[in-house]
């Protein structure tokens, strides 16, 4: 079976000509489950899958973040609230992958309702990082990143509200892509913070992310925030090369909180890009520091409202023997939601309350506009902006569990991208303490093509993305 552990979609596709990669991926996922806990629900896959069927991703196995509704397959959002919820419909992302011929082997573990950066906030237990089983894989798309890193699937879906694709990709040494807001339909992707949420892709290679994006991108009449744009070939964009590409380096992405070894890793990567013909340009993002506080007002505000539907009335967890309506609400939600979700609902409810709305929510929205303006100004002179994805490498499970503020502060380099609705990608760029480091590349709105040119260009001159964790050896072959 180990012969099937290919690094990229092309490898899986070649193998699929005479073998069953779906069965192989499922077997590996099952074997890895006790160690990684990366899946919440394995998919029931019927019949042998070979590449004979049509579709751009025909016969390619993938893991699907448990945030995307899958008709007939339990979808929990990592929450006890939705333990046992089987959607009657497919998310647009699920349907498009299905149309492309890709085969979901299971629903990937995640922080509850995508709230978290460690995957410790899952009602179904923490996911472990294949590079070090004592460490977190990052979050919230932790299961997706761990499965790709362990070579079990060539790609996995994720969602990115403040870094939930890029940060776990960085922690697990794989590539994580988040598109411009409105590029991929949110229909059927369980909402955390609607104005920030975007579906994303985790794969080993940027090129594979582009290939999956080709299948997922496009207007959806069922999502009023999805945007109608001319079709683009993102795979073709990968081959544009980096010669003459202007890469902006912002001092603010190298703030005091960024560990120096991490900064060095990314600087080395940028130097290599420069040698390959890219131009490095100093830019400023003066209000980046405000992005974490703004994000932690806006995201909880939207979440407090988005999660109001989980009331125990129509579906999901419902408290037993409620005394009255308020008791039903209070107990269903107290029992169904975990600590971090409750914390954010409370914060969000507070910042939207009469008398506080102007000081918090409205002000955060103003800051958001300023941050978007900073990026717009910067992109007048550069094609992409680069910096570390995270301040540090993957931390130990439990290390920050009691310090939500430290956890939030570590989002400093990722959340601004969501506030401004920009596309971004994290690519592996080295190791610190034997753990992967991610280089984040940020593009202007709808500038995915430049982003893929830069990311793929870098992966042509580096091999960090080929490194696989020792864990893989533990998978029975």
């Amino acid at each position: 079976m180990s012969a099937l552990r290919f690094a990229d979609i092309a490898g899986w596709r070649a193998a699929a000509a005479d073998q069953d990669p779906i069965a192989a991926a499922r077997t590996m996922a099952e074997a890895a489950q006790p160690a990684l806990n990366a899946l919440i629900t394995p998919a029931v896959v019927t019949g042998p899958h070979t590449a004979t069927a049509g579709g751009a991703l025909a016969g390619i196995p993938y893991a699907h973040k448990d945030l995307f509704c899958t008709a007939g397959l339990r979808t929990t959002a990592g929450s006890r609230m939705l333990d046992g919820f089987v959607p009657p419909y497919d998310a647009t992302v699920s349907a498009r992958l299905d149309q492309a011929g890709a085969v979901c082997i299971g629903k990937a573990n995640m922080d509850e309702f995508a709230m978290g950066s460690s995957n410790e906030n899952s009602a179904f237990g923490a996911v472990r990082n294949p590079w070090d089983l004592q460490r977190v894989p990052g979050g919230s798309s932790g299961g997706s990143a761990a499965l790709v890193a362990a070579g079990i699937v060539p790609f996995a879906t994720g969602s990115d509200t403040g870094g939930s694709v890029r940060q776990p990709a960085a922690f697990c040494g794989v590539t994580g892509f988040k598109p411009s807001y409105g590029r991929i339909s949110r229909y059927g992707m369980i909402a955390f913070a609607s104005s920030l949420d975007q579906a994303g892709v985790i794969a080993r290679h940027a090129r594979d992310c582009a290939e999956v994006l080709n299948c997922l991108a496009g207007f959806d009449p069922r999502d009023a925030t999805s945007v109608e744009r001319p079709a683009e070939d993102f795979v073709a964009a990968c081959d544009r090369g980096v010669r003459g590409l202007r890469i902006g380096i912002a001092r603010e992405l190298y703030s005091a909180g960024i560990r120096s070894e991490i900064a060095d890793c990314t600087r080395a990567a940028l130097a290599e890009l420069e040698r390959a013909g890219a131009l490095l340009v100093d830019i400023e993002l003066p209000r980046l520091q405000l992005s974490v506080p703004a994000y932690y007002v806006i995201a909880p505000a939207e979440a407090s409202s988005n999660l109001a539907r989980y009331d125990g009335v129509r579906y999901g967890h419902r408290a037993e023997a409620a005394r009255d309506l308020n008791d039903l609400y209070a107990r269903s939600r107290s029992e169904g939601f975990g600590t971090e979700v409750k914390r954010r609902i409370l914060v969000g409810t507070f910042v939207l309350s009469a008398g506080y709305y102007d000081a918090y929510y409205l002000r955060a929205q103003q800051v958001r506009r300023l941050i978007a303006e900073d990026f717009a100004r910067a992109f007048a002179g550069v094609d992409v902006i680069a910096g570390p994805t995270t301040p540090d490498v993957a931390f130990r499970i439990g290390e920050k569990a009691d310090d939500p503020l430290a956890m939030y502060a570590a989002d400093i380099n990722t959340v601004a991208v969501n506030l401004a609705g920009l596309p971004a990608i994290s690519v592996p760029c080295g190791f610190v303490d034997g753990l992967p480091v991610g280089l984040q590349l940020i593009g202007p709105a709808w500038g995915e093509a430049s982003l893929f040119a830069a990311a793929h260009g870098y992966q042509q001159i580096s091999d960090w993305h080929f490194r696989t964790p020792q864990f893989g050896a533990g998978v029975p072959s």
Partner: protein
Amino acid sequence: MSSEWEAVIGLEVHVQLSTRSKIFSGATTAYGAEPNTQVSFVDAALPGTLPVPNRGAIERAIEFGLAVGATVAERSVFARKNYFYPDLPKGYQISQYELPIVSGGSVKARLEDGREIEVALTRAHLEEDAGKSVHDAFHAASGVDLNRAGTPLLEVVSEPVMHSAAEAVAYMKALHRLVRWLGICDGNMQEGSFRCDANVSVRRPGAPLGTRNEIKNVNSFRFVEKAIDYEIERQIRALENGETIVQATRLYDAAANRTRTMRSKEDALDYRYFPDPDLPPLLLDASDLERARARLPELPDARRRRFIEQLGLPEYDADKLTEERAWSDYFESMLQVLPAQAKLCANWVLGELASALNADQIAIEDSRVDASALAALLARIADQTISGKIAKDVFAAMWAGEGTADAIIDARGLRQITDDGALAGAIEALIAQFPEQIAKYRAGDEKIFQFLIGQLMKATRGKANPAQLNQMLRSRL
């Protein structure tokens, strides 16, 4: 009511827009189906579902705005009104808050005493209806019917400019007439298509506004009048007893004819309004408004004026003929055939036709005699083929389905006798038959003349032209 007090009343009227599907989903809005059979995944607020605005609802709101001379916003914003209730599946209602689609404008209304008022509007905004809680269908449990959830509403908010229940009802009736006239609402109050919340306060004339109470959800003109009257009385009584009015939301109990407190200001909910991140701002341009303007019918006030000034109709007829668009259109269709006979047409529409429709309890749209058929009948009065009296018999025959006016007139031999010779013969026969009466008339008994005419009409079976007969008999005698 004591004359030292002045009541101040403002109304919020919920106008259900007559779209086939709901405001944010494709489910049907048809009334009266089995519970929960008209509920889409969006209406049930399944995880991951998203609202998409219904063009038809927006177009109707624009038409309303233009019809009341309001400002239709180039940019309006859907907002979430957050509160928990079992018939509110998302835990929030999508409405418009700070930036409604329609601002300002006014509605003219005529009171029963003929006085005319012009009621200024504050705004009109789009929103979705909630579902319905059912408290009497199950033992020890309540049910929820979501058929109504997501039904499009236009909430029309008046300024607090009315001073009596009679004014409020006159305004509400004028608004009811207008929305039905525009065809944007079916106006069915039993089915809840047109419902009203009334804000009532009292003050000393010239003093600042008093504390208001809001009477919720009244769905008949009569109840609105009674509820407001009761509430004015109640507040005056309280103030005269030295009490203060406590701001509260009240319900009208029709059986007891009183209002009672639903919740006081202390229990008022904080709805935590904020812009709905699932719905981009609603942008309208000049062409959207132009298209709506082109769809607008001639408005009732303009048509009423035209009926009076150009057709010479009395005010009463003009009022009656502009109460409902269908009646007005019926009348106008008749004028196409009989342009010079407006008064005759008006008399017949408001007379014979109205009573026939009323007797059979059918709407004018379903009339057994259509406008052109009725006009053809009246043409026979106009050209003196038949008398008005005979025409009533012909109409009854037409109503019974016996054919066109001409066919019935011919089949029954009802053509008026206008031949002098035939009438002269009848007069000679009369003179021979009633010598005494003739003598009395000749002696100056004017009263006997009507008797003689009556006898002549009898002899000609009503077919004689009465004016001609009159003139001939007088000259003969």
